[in-house]
């Protein structure tokens, strides 16, 4: 059975600079896989390459076994890939309701659409209160919730979430961790995250990137137990015993 998302030896440039130089990735269906790595490791570019915003110069990107090569971003989205970018991930000049409705597949009838919106509002009660407000007037945490809800409402087969905890208060980070953990088994998630605490709560598997290459993949516990790995590739400072 093919993986939900698979990348093999992917190479990609931004301008004349090589950003990805051998990314491989296997995201099993229904899992939450966390992609980690230092700043500049190529995590965001990996997500943008999957979405078709950055051309894949070499290697393969497959969704449930089907190649995504050469497809424009909107076609990739319609195949069931939902993307939550790190920044500018909601439409600030639209209300919360409009942001959610815009993301609904056109095939949805009114009742089906309302049910889908109702489901995501159940996950994010804050958004229900802010339903008629402009997205640009939301707090950072609420915006992040709306960004994730806008993708969830389209019932994606695979979700790509780029560093959702950046700049958020601990309360929102905990809430995010709970929500993403709830998605296990319901959809497939590839989560880019620098916050190891959130990664530990939400993720089942990890992929470690360094200088545009995949250096290690495996179950999350493996990374959490390996402090040397954390120190080397994530810059996590480990307090030594006795100090």
């Amino acid at each position, binding site marked *: 059975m093919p993986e939900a998302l698979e990348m093999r030896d992917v190479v990609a440039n931004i301008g004349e600079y090589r950003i990805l130089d051998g990314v491989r990735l296997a995201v099993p269906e229904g899992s939450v896989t966390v992609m980690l790595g230092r700043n500049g490791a190529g995590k965001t570019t990996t997500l943008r390459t999957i*979405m078709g*915003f950055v051309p894949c110069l070499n290697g393969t990107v497959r969704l449930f076994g089907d190649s995504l090569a050469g497809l*424009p*971003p*909107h076609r990739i*989205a*319609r195949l069931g890939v939902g*993307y939550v*970018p790190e*920044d*500018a*991930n*909601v*439409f*600030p*000049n*639209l209300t919360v309701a*409009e942001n959610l*409705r*815009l*993301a609904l*597949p056109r095939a949805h009838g009114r009742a089906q659409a309302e049910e889908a919106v109702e489901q995501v509002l159940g996950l994010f009660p804050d958004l229900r209160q802010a339903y008629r407000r402009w997205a640009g007037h939301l707090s950072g945490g609420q915006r992040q919730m709306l960004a994730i809800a*806008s993708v969830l409402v*389209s019932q994606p087969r695979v979700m790509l979430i780029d560093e959702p905890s950046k700049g958020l208060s601990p309360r929102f980070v905990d809430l995010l961790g709970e929500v993403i953990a709830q998605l296990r088994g319901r959809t497939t998630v590839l989560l880019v995250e620098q916050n190891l605490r959130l990664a530990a709560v939400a993720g089942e598997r990890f992929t470690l990137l360094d200088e545009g290459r995949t250096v290690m993949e495996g179950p999350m516990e493996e990374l959490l137990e390996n402090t040397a790995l954390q120190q080397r590739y994530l810059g996590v400072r480990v307090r030594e015993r006795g100090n």
Partner: protein
Amino acid sequence: MSVALTLLLNGLANSALYFLMASGLTLIFGLLRVVNFAHGGFFVWGAYTGTFLASALHNLAASIAGGAAVGVLLGWLVERGLMRRLYGDATQQLLITMGVLMVLSELVRLIFGPNPISAPAPTSLGRSWVVNGVPLVAYEGFVILFGAAVFAILQGVLRGTRLGALIRAGVSNPELLAARGIPVRRVFTAVFAIGAGLAALAGGLSGPWFGAVTPDMGMDMQLTAFVIVVLGGLGSVGGSLLGSLVVGITTAIVSYFAPSLAVLAGVVVMALVLVVRPHGLMGQREVA
């Protein structure tokens, strides 16, 4: 007092035409980030098509609709045939859209000749009255109401329909729109064609307003529309309305006292506003 009211009405009619021209231009810039010099060409074609149909059919609605339809068609052809290849390349866009303006204006000159062609108001709107010393011209009132109706319809579409939400979303973040599964290129084409149609609509209405159509009228209108779009705030339809009112009324007043300074007046107002509000009256700062 009667002079002030006369100038106000005159200014409002100017503003209505300017708004039709500027609203399309601002939507195209907001969504596509294209400074579209071809807009003046669509205006000219709307003016000539409207004038030609009015003399052939003697039907105001058909002449205005025909002019707008030609604008939509030209806009669609220019976007699909030329602009689509040039998104993201500002220099090429500038050159190509200026080239399109010149070609469209020269085609008009070739087909209809270089001399002005008379464009009288239809008989039903050719009447005028004097009330308390203020001359009321039926066509002037029609242009003002038409502009107001188009503004209301545009607001209704932008605020109350899915297409409107797509356009507003695209103005804000076209990449995110694509990530939501929307074929952004199609939205681009639709907005470019609608914008061109609005310019042609302004052209169709402006013939009887100015009394004649000329091949060069697009360039003058183009410059005024750019002033309004910058003054109102790039990408803002509400800003275009405000900018149109400011420039339209200012132009009417200055034309009365010093006709040779009328065009300059709009530019001076724009410069003064930009000193105080660098993003225009209703413009927003770029969202990172």
